[in-house]
């Protein structure tokens, strides 16, 4: 693979993604694509949330665009975006050499661990909307947080057995570090003259305006209720996968309502609780269904054995 480096010396943004993908593919991960829905973090992807549950082994890596409406700054803050990319890795069960594997991935994108100060700093993870928690660290590179590293203990209120190890790389942050630039918009995207700003600056301006000013709140409230109702209906029909998508939708709609400033502090908790109930329902249904499917497969196998 030819790698084009920017004039500042670091790896271009898209090369970094390609490198991480090929690194984790070499280490046995399925390379998946983003889930085609708006979500606040790569953890929401069914390949993480749902696959972290149940007894089966699972290794996957993917890029997930994340939307955090309240973080929008109309493209004026060099460090904050309402839309950005996470690179997500899930390893289940978490391997004994997971820290070394992670450090190897940093090496692969050009971070010299003998030149820089890499640290594992306590950061326990909890997602109230997913009913999930785990222990781990944020990874510091010369004082900058470049990744989150978590050992999942619970998802959807269900114990994770075995435990999954989750890595989340903030791609823009990491690229800023690797390229040594001070603004996201100055990031070298392709090693050939295109910057991150060329691709996304106008998007940040317009989406910030939408999130903060133009999103129709009555419609959002309706969307929330509809997603909630749809999710409940689908759970009754024992269809956890489409049900979970409605849960993702309700979560993002809540985030948009929050950005519009129309959810009071009291209501906030109630909304988070409603999303959590949906997530729990989906996780429970998924565990039940995958166990049934596995039992079914085994039943077929043993019949074949008999014959």
């Amino acid at each position, binding site marked *: 693979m030819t790698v084009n480096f920017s004039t500042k010396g670091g790896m271009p943004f898209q090369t970094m993604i390609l490198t991480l993908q090929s690194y984790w593919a070499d280490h046995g991960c399925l390379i998946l694509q983003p889930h085609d829905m708006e979500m606040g973090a790569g953890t929401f992807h069914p390949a993480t949330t749902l696959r972290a549950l149940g007894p089966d082994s699972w290794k996957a890596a993917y890029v997930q665009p994340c939307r955090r409406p309240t973080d929008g700054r109309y493209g004026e803050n060099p460090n904050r975006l309402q839309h950005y990319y996470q690179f997500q890795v899930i390893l289940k069960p978490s391997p004994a050499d997971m820290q070394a594997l992670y450090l190897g991935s940093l090496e692969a994108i050009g971070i010299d661990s003998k030149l820089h100060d890499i640290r594992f700093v306590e950061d326990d993870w909890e997602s109230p909307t997913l009913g999930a928690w785990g222990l*781990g660290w944020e990874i510091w590179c010369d004082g900058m947080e470049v990744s989150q590293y978590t050992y999942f203990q619970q998802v959807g209120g269900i114990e994770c057995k075995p*435990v999954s190890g989750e890595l989340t790389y903030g791609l823009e942050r990491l690229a800023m570090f690797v390229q040594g630039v001070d603004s996201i918009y100055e990031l070298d995207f392709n090693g050939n003259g295109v910057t991150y700003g060329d691709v996304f600056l106008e998007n940040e301006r317009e989406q910030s305006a939408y999130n903060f000013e133009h999103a129709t709140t009555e419609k959002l409230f309706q969307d929330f209720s509809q997603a909630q109702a749809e999710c409940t209906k689908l759970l009754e029909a024992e269809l956890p996968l489409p049900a979970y998508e409605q849960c993702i939708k309700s979560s993002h709609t809540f985030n948009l309502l929050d950005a519009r400033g129309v959810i009071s502090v009291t209501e906030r908790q109630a909304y988070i609780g409603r999303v959590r109930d949906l997530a729990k329902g989906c996780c429970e249904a998924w565990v039940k269904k995958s166990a049934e499917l596995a039992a079914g497969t085994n039943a077929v196998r043993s019949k074949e054995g008999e014959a």
Partner: protein
Amino acid sequence: MADLLIELFSEEIPARMQAKASGDLKRMITASLTDAGLTFEVAAAFATPRRLALSVTGVPTSTPDISEERRGPSTRAPEKALEGFMRGAGVTRDQLEEREEKKGTFFYAKIEKPGRAATEVIAEAVEAAVRNFPWPKSQRWGAGALKWVRPLHSIICVFGGNIVKFEIEGVQAGNYTQGHRFMAPEPFTVSDFGDYKAKLLDHNVILDPARRATLIADTAQTLASAAGLELVADRGLLEEVAGLVEWPVPMIGKFDPDFLAVPEEVLILTMKKDQKYFVTRDPATGKLANKFIFAANIEPTDDGTAITQGNQRVLAARLADAKFFWEQDLKGKLDDNLGALKDIVFHKDLGMVSDRVERMKKLSRYLAGFIDGCDADQAERAAELAKADLVSGMVNEFASLQGTMGRYYALAQGEAQAVADAARDHYAPAGPNDACPSAPVSVAVALAEKLDTLVGFFGIDQKPTGSKDPFALRRSALGIIRLITENNVRLELQAVLAAALLGYLDQGNVLIRAKIDEKMHGTADDLEVALGVAIGVHRGAELLSFFGDRLKVQQRDKGVRHDLIDAVFAKGDDDLVRILDRVAALSAALETDDGVNLLAGYKRAANILRIEEKKDGKAYDQSVDMALLTLAEEKSLHIALKDAKAEAEAALTDEDFEKAMAALSTLRVPIDAFFEAVIVNADEADIRANRLALLSEIRSAVNTVADFGLIEG
């Protein structure tokens, strides 16, 4: 004798947990050794981000042999009894001994229990410690069931140079470990603690956290001095940083001096809390300097430029964010924020923060009347603005800057200094050692804030129970006590609590209203009494006794006896300043001979009275009949009591408690003389009754200052 070395090697242990964890390891292992009968000379425990280590010297290689003799049945006992005895003692017939005693001949068994190998005890001790370690939070990993703070990778367990073999959930005990993650990652073996420590050092790990801390502090000092700056010492931060590194390499970085326009509390918070940096000051001006010191965990292959530049870039981005909030907030006024407080819930049954602000305004104005030099308008204005910074951009981002930012924004919009200071200080004191406000306006608003909290939560029955105090009501009460007593604020606590409660009633709080109606059965004509009953501010009731308990805890730390506070509190006074004055006078008097004897005389009188009153089923509180006083000692006591009581009462009116105690102390001589010469239980019923009445006079005279019955000793 041999030496023991244990290391538990894991992924990164949170800095804040390391010190306690190494102590726990030492405690658990040495307790197991001691319980098994193994002594030791010295035990020392250490922690780094990746390991807990324990060295125990001078441990015997086995537990002592135990020799025990057991008496069995008589030789004439049935065979069955003998069999049972031999089974229980684990011996055979030929090992028994027969001994003649007075009551006949008996079997004796001698049981020899050889000592256990220390290695067995050690293996069990380590396994028990690992499985039951008291981490504040622990986790599973992979497909295993073991829990540790983070995945546990290897265990060193070496005793007398040899590996103690055991396995915990697939982790084998051995004699190898690793050094610094990046500088010297290759594994190595060790033979004992000295070897372990030395090899770690060769592999870029300083085992002892105290040594790492000293190294960081010294180098930081040198770097600051070389830059002509003063290092701001910070013990807590130093310990935390020492827990984040195995090989500390302090470096100095700088930021754009333009950021110094932002309040220094913001800059310090960002550097210290978020980035774990030490800050520096210009020694000439005392102002924050634009240089910071941090400890890297590596000696990099360059001269540190890459790491320093990286840290500078991160800090610049964070400070830019802070500067943005500062400038945005300054564009508006605090008053503009008041509307937004209507959207923040204080508590679902106690209204929004805006409601709280309205109550605090009234209460602060009311309290201003009790505080010397407090301008009521300023107190009300300060209360109005006190919570306005909660919705500012800066406090939204850095919650711990609440109050601090309020002061800056108040000054920026031209409020009086006293008003601005109160906006900052009204949360104080946050604990027994926190600075207590003394500026009059600050005292008023700080009191109002805490009274409003305390009365509100008691009013809706959200009282602290046991170790649970989710609304920090004990801290509020302590804050009130400190604000009142340290500033000599003279007020009646019950009246002030009632005023605070009225604030809720004026706002139509239905829960609290219902509670009053229920308790008073709708017949409350005296509102203050009704309020008192409702939240129990009356004497002996919950909120006031809650204050009494807090006062005792707070004063105990100052060496004041709790029984003296009880004795004074029982008099029903609710002026905390006066209560403590009284306690002080009482305490001083009880240190003198007269005081001790007065107390003894009082107890004697009270005891006799209690017994006789119980026996006769009536109180002897009638007036003393002069005509029935026969002995000189009786007469002089009666006169002395009359004089002393009058004098004590007069002194109490003047709040001269020393004088009151002095008056009572004169009673010592006549009381002693009385008991020496007079038999209380005289044969003549009328004389006996009169003498008991005299004892009753002693009791009531002495009790004018405090309830002496509650004093111990």
